C-alpha cells in the first residue's frame, strides 16, 4: 500500500468513525428520568416561547427605530400590555402634578393599534406613574432582559410578568394589603419579601399578603432571578 492510499484510507476511516461517534453521542450523555424529561420539555418550550415569541414580530413593515415619549390618560393606562423582545422594562413613580402616565421608549418599536399596548423589538421602556395611580390589569412580556421598578396594583388588580431569560426585581405597592404573588422560575432563584406568609413548591414561590383574596401578581421566568418586595401601601 502506498503512502497516498494510506492517507486516503485514514481520511475515509476518520469520517466513518466521526459519523459513528456523532450517532453514538446521545448514548454517552446521562439519561434523564421521566420527570426530568417532562421538566426539560416545559423549560425548553418556555424559553422558546418567551425568547422567540416577542422577537418574532421584529423587522416587519410596521417597525421603526428611534425614541418616543407618549402620555396616557390614567384611566386608559390602568390596563396595559408591554411587550419587549430584547431589552428592559422599568416602572418608576413620578411626582408630576399633570396626572398622566408617561411612557418613554427607545429602540425598535412595533406599532400597535392601541396606545396602551407598547411593543418593542429591542430597547428600553420606562413608565412613569403619577401619585395614586394603580394598575388594574398589567401584562409585561419580555424575551430576554430585565423588569424592575415599583408596581402599584389596585385592590382587585392583576399583573403578569412573563420573562424568558433575565431578572425581575419589583417593589410591589398594593392599594390594599391583601393578595397573592406567585413566582415561577425554571432555572434560577425566586425570593419574596414583606409578605405575611410564603410557601415554596418545586421551582415556585407563593407569597400571600393578608387573606390573599385581593390582587394577584404572577411572575413566570424561564431562566434567571426573580425578587418581589412589598413596599406599600
Amino acid at each position, binding site marked *: 500500500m502506498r503512502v*497516498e492510499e494510506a*492517507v486516503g484510507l485514514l*481520511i475515509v476511516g476518520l*469520517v466513518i468513525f466521526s459519523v459513528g461517534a*456523532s450517532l453514538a*453521542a446521545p448514548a454517552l*450523555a446521562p439519561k434523564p428520568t421521566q420527570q426530568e424529561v417532562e421538566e*426539560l420539555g416545559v423549560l*425548553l418550550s418556555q424559553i422558546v416561547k418567551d425568547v422567540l415569541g416577542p422577537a418574532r414580530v421584529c423587522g416587519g413593515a410596521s417597525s421603526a427605530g428611534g425614541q418616543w415619549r407618549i402620555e396616557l390618560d390614567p384611566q386608559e393606562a390602568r390596563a396595559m400590555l408591554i411587550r419587549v423582545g430584547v431589552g428592559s422594562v422599568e416602572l418608576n413613580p413620578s411626582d408630576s402634578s399633570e396626572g398622566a402616565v408617561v411612557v418613554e421608549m427607545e429602540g425598535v418599536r412595533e406599532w400597535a393599534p392601541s396606545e396602551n399596548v407598547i411593543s418593542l423589538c429591542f430597547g428600553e421602556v420606562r413608565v412613569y406613574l403619577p401619585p395614586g395611580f394603580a394598575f388594574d390589569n398589567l401584562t409585561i412580556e419580555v424575551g430576554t432582559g430585565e423588569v424592575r421598578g415599583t408596581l402599584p396594583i389596585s385592590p382587585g388588580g392583576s399583573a403578569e410578568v412573563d420573562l424568558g431569560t433575565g431578572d425581575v426585581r419589583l417593589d410591589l405597592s398594593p392599594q390594599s394589603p391583601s393578595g397573592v404573588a406567585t413566582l415561577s422560575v425554571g432555572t434560577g432563584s425566586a425570593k419574596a419579601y414583606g409578605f405575611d406568609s410564603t410557601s415554596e413548591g418545586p421551582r415556585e414561590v407563593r407569597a400571600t399578603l393578608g387573606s390573599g383574596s385581593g390582587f394577584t401578581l404572577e411572575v413566570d421566568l424561564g431562566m434567571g432571578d426573580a425578587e418581589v418586595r412589598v413596599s406599600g401601601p
Partner: protein
Amino acid sequence: MAGPFRSGLYRVGGVLLHPRQTFEVMAHEDVSIGLPLLLAAGISFAEGALFVAAVLRIIPLPLAPVISIASPLVGIGAAVSNVVLMVIAALLIHLDARLLGGTGDVTRALSVVAYSVLPSALPLGAFSLAVLVGGLGAIGWLALGGVLWLVAAVWGVALLVIGVSVFYNVDMGSAFLAALLIPLVDLLVVIFLGKYGLVLLMAAYALAYYFSRQSRAGGVAWAPAREPVGADVGEIAPEELDEERPGEDGGGER
C-alpha cells in the same frame, strides 16, 4: 471493485500530500467527483453533529434526548447546506475561471471544491474526543478542534487555488481570483446589497461575458490578418528550395 476504490483512496491521499501532481494526473485521466463529494458530505454531517453534541455534553444536565434530536438534525442540515453551497461555489468558480481565460467544464470545479473540503476531516478527531470525554474536559478538545479547523480552512483554500489553476489551465494569480477573491466579493455584495446585489452581480457577469466574447471575436477577426505560420510555403520558388542551407552538410560556421 478494489481497483476504483484504491484509485479513489490514492487520489484523496495524493491531493492532500502533493496536490499539484495529483490534480495534473486527474486532468489527464479523468476527474473524480463521487468519492470526494461523498466524503465532503460526510465530513459536514460529522462536524455539525459532533459540534452540537460536544457543546451539549459540556452542560451538566441530562440532555440525552436533546442530543439525540439536535445532533443528527444539525448534521443533516450541515451536510445538505454544504453540498448546496459546494455546487453554488463550483458554478461561480467555473464562471470566473472561464471569464479569466481558463478552459474546463463545471465538473472540474465541483471536483476541486469537494477535494478542498477534505482537510476539514482534521478536526473531526478532536470533536469526537470532545463528545466522548464530555463535561469541562470537552472544552479543551473543542478548542483544539477549532484551531485544527482554521488550519484545515487555510489548507483547503490552498487546494482550491492549486486545483483551479491545474484544472482550468490558468496561472496561480488568476486561479486565486477565480477561486477565492471574486466569489468572496460576490458574497459580500449579496450580503450587503441583498437582491439589488444579486441583480448587480448578474449584470456584471453578463457584461464580463459580453466583453470576453467580443474579445474572442476580435481575436478571430484579427487572426486571419496575420500571416499564418507556413502560409508562404506555396510561394517559395523551387530554386529556393534547392538552395543549400547553412549547416545542412555539416560545413556551416559554428
